[in-house]
């Protein structure tokens, strides 16, 4: 992002940048930047907080009128956080059934596949509720596969890594990355039917309790053990967030 600021400004376009990693911005010295003390992924602070978002946007826009660069200002306020949930409310977004005790042998792929599709069926109403609450906005759709088809492809890959890529025109590494992200988007969108849940809670639920997360962790373990450097790299860095590494087996 800092590089783009230099390139565009050199071409005559005024820029003002939102920075989430202050150290990078200090080193790259873009002409105008505003550091914001928010989590990675949230440059305008908090969802559904229009007044706060507008304040961040107005603050960074105001920098456009200055020419004393390189400018690196600090936004003074922390982002508003989600409200605490009661135990009763928590039950609404956690996985409705924990299948882990009935799936103690992942080599039994038929059993696993059936269980994860049951889990998806139970989450489906929450997913639909979440999509409806957002006026039809949904985040899955990186591929054209249904959630169940994604499960079939990933389970088949877990059984046999010599199968050809299941995503037309793409190699297996990209097929796995895009379908795992789509699977994750489905689960996260379902969990967000209760928007006050924190992202840390949802991450821990997905990777620690759901079968969807178990499937991705299993694929990750397989990829890390392969010789192919591209597939190995996807396994090492593209499927499990660093912050969730305690769920790796």
């Amino acid at each position, binding site marked *: 992002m800092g*590089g*783009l600021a230099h390139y565009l*400004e050199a071409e005559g376009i005024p820029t003002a*940048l939102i920075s989430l990693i202050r150290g990078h911005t200090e080193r790259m010295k*873009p002409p105008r930047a505003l550091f914001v003390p928010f989590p990675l992924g949230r440059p*305008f602070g908090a969802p559904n907080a229009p007044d706060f978002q507008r304040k961040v946007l107005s603050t960074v826009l105001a920098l456009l009128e200055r020419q004393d660069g*390189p400018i690196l200002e600090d936004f003074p306020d922390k982002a508003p956080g989600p409200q605490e949930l009661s135990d009763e409310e928590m039950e609404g977004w956690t996985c409705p059934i924990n299948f882990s005790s009935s799936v103690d042998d992942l080599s039994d792929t038929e059993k696993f596949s059936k269980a994860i599709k049951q889990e998806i069926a139970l989450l489906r109403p929450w997913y639909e509720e979440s999509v409806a609450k957002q006026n039809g906005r949904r985040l899955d759709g*990186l591929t054209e596969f249904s959630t169940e088809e994604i499960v079939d492809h990933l389970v088949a890959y877990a059984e046999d890594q010599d199968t050809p890529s299941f995503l037309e025109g793409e190699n297996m590494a990209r097929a796995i990355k895009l379908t795992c992200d789509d699977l994750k988007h489905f689960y996260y969108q379902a969990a967000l039917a209760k928007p006050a849940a924190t*992202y840390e809670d949802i991450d821990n639920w997905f990777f620690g309790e759901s079968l969807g997360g178990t499937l991705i962790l299993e694929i990750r373990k397989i990829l890390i053990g392969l010789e192919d450097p591209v597939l190995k790299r996807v396994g090492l860095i593209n499927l499990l967030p660093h912050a969730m590494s305690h769920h790796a087996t």
Partner: protein
Amino acid sequence: MVFLKDMPEAAYERIVNQELPEYGETDCVAGPPLAERRIAIITTAGLHRREDTAFKMGVGEYRIIPDDTDMNDLIMSHISNNFDRTGFQQDLNIVFPIERLRELDKADEIGSVAAYHYAFMGATPPTDQAAVAKDLAGLLKGDNVTGVILAGV
């Protein structure tokens, strides 16, 4: 726990100390008062319309987001999973504040909203964006843009 400071130490060190190109200082381009500026948003969140091709690693490419796009149709194919996406799943404006920008336009705090906005994927090495940025600058000028908000994730 997607605050950078809360990441495991090895991941924190890798991100903070990653190799970055040196640019020196670039002069700030002057422009009209904010209330007369035409503003575009450029995000590095890897956003695109559902029918667009998903972003690929190591390619300094961008996607166009026309201002009249159905914003509900924007999805994210950023390769990194080390930033929060639940905020984006609840509210597009947390990474791409298009509604806030339109509100500022309506309140005459900016001059106008650009006809086109743009999205990159931030995991791309900055130097891979040099050639495409030149092309992009031409498009922004053609749209009479006089201010760009660059928002990373």
